[in-house]
């Protein structure tokens, strides 16, 4: 690149020197970092743009569009956005989301651990059959279950409650069961046996031996479960119609209705804020995430 302004006479020499330049390890390293970091910034640009826009003033937001640095830094959008709509603030929406994601994750992970232990360590009639059924549910589109579920839940009068969202999680989730099983299989059986000799029952082995050992797998499962529940849109959309029950996802969608709103700064502010828990977890638990995906193919 530095040789761009050379004369014709030097071309041949330049060619070879460029070649040896490329052979130079340091040059290649610099080139690598420029390319990978450059493309990385392109990848992150939309998200950075969202964050930046959430701090821009009302006048600036659609006039100083592509800049990542607000001319006038303001927190006004967050204050306005948090007020929400229809007299319901985002305090309510966050509370709803945390209830759904918190309880939902707890249920899904605990149940998955129990079931995984059953499949991984106990020999029983029909084990292979039920395991195959469980794996088959991984491929099942939710659409073939959701309509009858909706009919039954609405007959029970559970529309606008959290039961339809949480109850189906009491059985754990096939992805997590499978992942935790793989993990349990890696634990030496000697430990189980030693505990058994000391008079531990199945329950004791599970809670005292297995559970402490599979903590990394449980953390990975909990992170993914939290993510999926936090971002879940279809289930709340179907079952929660009253704005006071909206999760953050539903609230954002209603808030950002193009026909209704004009306060885009507030929308960007609330959108950015809704990503904060996700990124916070990502920063602190990146190792668990990467391992979870690489080893089991969990999708984030």
């Amino acid at each position, binding site marked *: 690149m530095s040789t761009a302004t050379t004369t014709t006479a030097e071309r041949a020499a330049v060619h070879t020197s460029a070649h040896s330049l490329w052979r130079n390890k340091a040059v290649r390293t610099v080139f690598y970092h420029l390319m990978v970091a450059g493309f990385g910034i392109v990848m992150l640009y939309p998200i950075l743009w969202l964050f930046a826009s959430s701090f821009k003033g009302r006048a600036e937001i659609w006039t100083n569009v592509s800049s990542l640095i607000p001319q006038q830094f303001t927190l006004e959008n967050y204050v306005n956005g948090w007020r929400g709509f229809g007299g319901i603030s985002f305090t309510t929406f966050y509370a709803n989301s945390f209830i759904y994601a918190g309880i939902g994750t707890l249920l899904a992970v605990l149940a998955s651990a129990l079931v995984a232990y059953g499949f991984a360590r106990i020999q029983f009639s029909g084990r292979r059959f039920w395991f195959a059924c469980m794996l088959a549910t991984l491929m099942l589109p939710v659409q073939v279950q959701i309509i009858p579920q909706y009919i039954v839940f609405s007959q029970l009068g559970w529309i606008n409650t959290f039961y339809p969202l949480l109850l189906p999680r009491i059985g754990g989730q096939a992805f997590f069961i499978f992942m935790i099983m793989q993990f349990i299989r890696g634990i030496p059986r000697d430990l189980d046996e030693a505990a058994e000799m000391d008079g531990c029952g199945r329950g004791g082995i599970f809670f005292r031996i297995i559970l402490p050992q599979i903590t990394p797998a449980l953390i990975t499962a909990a992170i993914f479960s939290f993510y999926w529940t936090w*971002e879940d849109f279809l289930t709340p959309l179907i079952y929660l119609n009253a704005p006071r029950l909206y999760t953050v996802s539903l609230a954002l969608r209603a808030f950002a209705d193009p026909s209704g709103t004009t306060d885009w700064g507030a929308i960007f502010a609330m*959108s950015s804020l809704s990503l904060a828990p996700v990124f916070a977890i990502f920063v602190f638990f990146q190792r668990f995430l990467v391992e979870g995906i690489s080893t089991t193919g969990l999708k984030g």
Partner: protein
Amino acid sequence: MSEALSAPAQAPSASHKGRPVRRRKASFRHDNLMGYLFISPWLIAFFAFTFIPIIASFLLAFTNYDVLNPSWGWVGLQNFERMFTRDPRYIKALQATFFYAFMAIPLRLIFALAIAMLLNTNRRMVSGYRAAYYAPSIVGGSVAIAVMWREIFGRDGLVNAILGADIAWLGNPNTAIWTLIILAVWQFGSPMLIFLAGLKQIPREFYEAAAIDGANGWQQFWRITLPLLTPIIFFNLVMQLISGFMVFTQAFIITGGAPLDTTLFYALYLYQRAFVSLQMGYASAMAWVLLAIIAIMTALVFRSSSYWVFYGSQEE
């Protein structure tokens, strides 16, 4: 990562060879009661929320069940006939979904593999880069990102501001679906991480031997990397196929199926039929066709795998 990957494969063989059979049996003995007790949460949920609903959904598919219409009944194959002969929007939905899947999935996998190869190095900062490339994927399914995408491609949005243009990306039937495809490709993080784990499993000696034989980087890619990665490409392809046909939230928020139903994805149209027009019999029939499509596509990939997936001397 590599340890965890090979752990399941090693564990059984270790217990076979290393220890007497009698001891192995002691901790893995037959116990129906405890077995069913431990899997009972799953079993109950499976019957209540999966198995019975599936049967019900199958039966509903042959009815004209409608929440508002009490005089509903059995209609045989009428729903299926209507889908393919008397519902032009359904055909539009099929077209949009297949176009989306056939564009977004290969592009996403190509990006995932290319970036994984770039990041498969011991250089400094690589874990930081990996995080940057993965970040869009962890938030990609959220409403916040969908809203953001809508504004990025809006009339006054970021893309037009950068290009200095005034193009209605979301309003033009030719470009609207591409905004969704780009959104999908942008989220190549998960397959990238899986590729990265696979790349780390390929022994360095293969490349060293090839280099001695005079193979250049391009040849090494086609002769070593790609063949050895085919099992992982296969896995990623199946996973992406299954999720690609079910995409919902992004289309719901960003385009709502418009313009001219060019982004009316299958799941979106099904939702509209089931929960907006409340034609749940018809929507159930659609759900079963979706299941059939996914099953057939997956089966085709599995069938084709014997021609292109290379297992070599690796253990399964």
